[in-house]
């Protein structure tokens, strides 16, 4: 019996240690990404642009009402019932919160590192913004503007999963994801309606559609690319586009309800 408990304790200790070890490994990789040609300035004079919009056809989805009664502080933050942001069709018939990015075709090189920090706030017990895109290794500043506890729990498949609490108006957290992954769902288990999605890519050619459903991918070197549009409810679709130097091309997507 004694041996059994000792074995169980050792196994538990090894498992816990193993978890921590994974974190260190990933941090190392984040510091030194995969070997690729060194960063070179993008040739702005010859850069091409891909623009477009993400349209929606079919019956407009009815936004589900969120019940925040389990946390009065959340309910108080909204004068009218908060709706789910899973599928938001804009007034112009386009789809909001679609992640558009260059999935393939870029030359094998390092792109200049992103210097800015991307913000992810918890406000009114909703993630703001609902969807965001970052570069691999780029800082994400997570804040809690609510007068209640939250836990931030990304669920990546490629990057390291983590789950941390953040007290009301608590200290900011600076986080990164080391590897490209489209998309990483983020949830708060305290408030199960809170969901966000983070697209992590190795280059700067991505966008999230907003109130006009449009996107712009600027500064592309001439070439042939696969552009993907990803939506949390309607899935992903791809299109190929070839752009010459200084050329601007339109690529439109259409999701069906």
């Amino acid at each position, binding site marked *: 019996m004694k041996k059994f408990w000792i074995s169980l304790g050792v196994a538990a200790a090894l498992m*816990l240690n193993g978890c921590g070890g994974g974190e260190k490994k990933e941090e190392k990789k984040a510091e030194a990404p995969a070997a690729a040609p060194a960063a070179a300035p993008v040739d702005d004079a010859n850069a091409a642009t891909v623009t477009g919009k993400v349209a929606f056809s079919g019956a407009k989805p009815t936004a589900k009402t*969120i019940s925040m009664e389990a946390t009065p502080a959340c309910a108080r933050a909204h004068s009218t019932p908060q709706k789910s942001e899973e599928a938001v069709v804009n007034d112009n018939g386009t789809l909001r919160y679609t992640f558009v990015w260059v999935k393939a075709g870029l030359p094998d090189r390092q792109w200049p590192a992103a210097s800015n920090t991307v913000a992810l706030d918890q406000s009114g017990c909703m993630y703001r913004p609902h969807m965001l895109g970052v570069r691999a290794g780029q800082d994400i500043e997570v804040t809690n503007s609510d007068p209640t*506890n939250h836990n931030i729990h990304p669920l990546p498949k490629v990057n390291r999963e983590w789950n941390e609490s953040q007290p009301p108006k608590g200290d900011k957290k600076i986080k990164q994801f080391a590897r490209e992954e489209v998309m990483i769902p983020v949830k708060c288990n305290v408030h199960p309606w809170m969901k966000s999605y983070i697209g992590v890519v190795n280059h700067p050619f991505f966008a999230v559609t907003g109130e006009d459903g449009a996107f712009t991918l600027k500064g592309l070197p001439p070439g042939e690319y696969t552009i993907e549009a990803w939506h949390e409810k309607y899935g992903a679709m791809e299109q190929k586009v070839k752009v010459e130097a200084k050329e601007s091309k339109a690529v439109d997507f259409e999701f069906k309800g």
Partner: protein
Amino acid sequence: MLHRFSVLVACSTLLLVVAGALVTSNDAGLSVPDWPLSYGQLMPKMEGGIFWEHGHRMVATTVGFLTLILAVWIARVETRPWLRILGWSALGAVVAQGLLGGITVLLLQPKPVSIGHACLAELFFSTTVAIAWFTSPAWRRGGPNVEDPGLHRLALAAPVSVFIQLALGAAARHKALGALAHIAWAPVTTGMVLWLVTRILMRHSGHGQLRTPALALVTITFAQVFLGIAAYMSRIATVDAPQPMKVMVVFTSAHVALGAMTLACSILTGIQVFRYAGRVSACPTIPEALPANS
């Protein structure tokens, strides 16, 4: 007194199973990222998912202490060595269960650990029910033996089948498997239970010690089948909801709790079969005369 206390422990354990089911159904398993403390405190603000997760921890702690008292009490007053071992086993199970719960939080719900946590919960509940049964006056009274050695295999197969079904259910809830395996195994389990119960009622309906648990088992099993259908339908109906809906939470948690009761009842039926059904010549009297001090 020991019997009443063991009934209290069994009832508290059922409450703990319900509390655990509510955590999973409300998707609140990781709402408290730290362990053994919650948000670095003994008592965080109980709201949202924290209410379910920390509430589960509070009930678990209480059951842990109750089980400790039960094990010590049994060790002090019981003369049956196997019951003393069972008491300590219950304590070991609740400690292991607490560790599994902690590991599942700290390692972000690895599926084998979460499923193990769910399965051990059901086994621990059955252990407390068995202890309550072994310390009861009904157990002490005993009954006549009956000739039916072939019943042993069925009495063993039924709880094993129920346990497999519970494990498949846990695997579906923790997304290791789809619901299909759990649904497919349900007729097998129901069939095994029906076979056992029918044979008991057909051959030994006059034996109260065998008839009563058999009737309880078939009643619970049928209720469980209907609750399972209700839980599945409620999950399908609310799949697009932005958060776990009450109808799904209630049906699913009730299904988990009744699953624990099905296992416990099938084990009790099995115990009764092994005690009373066999070769009459091999066991001519009631197996044990119990001490009066329990």
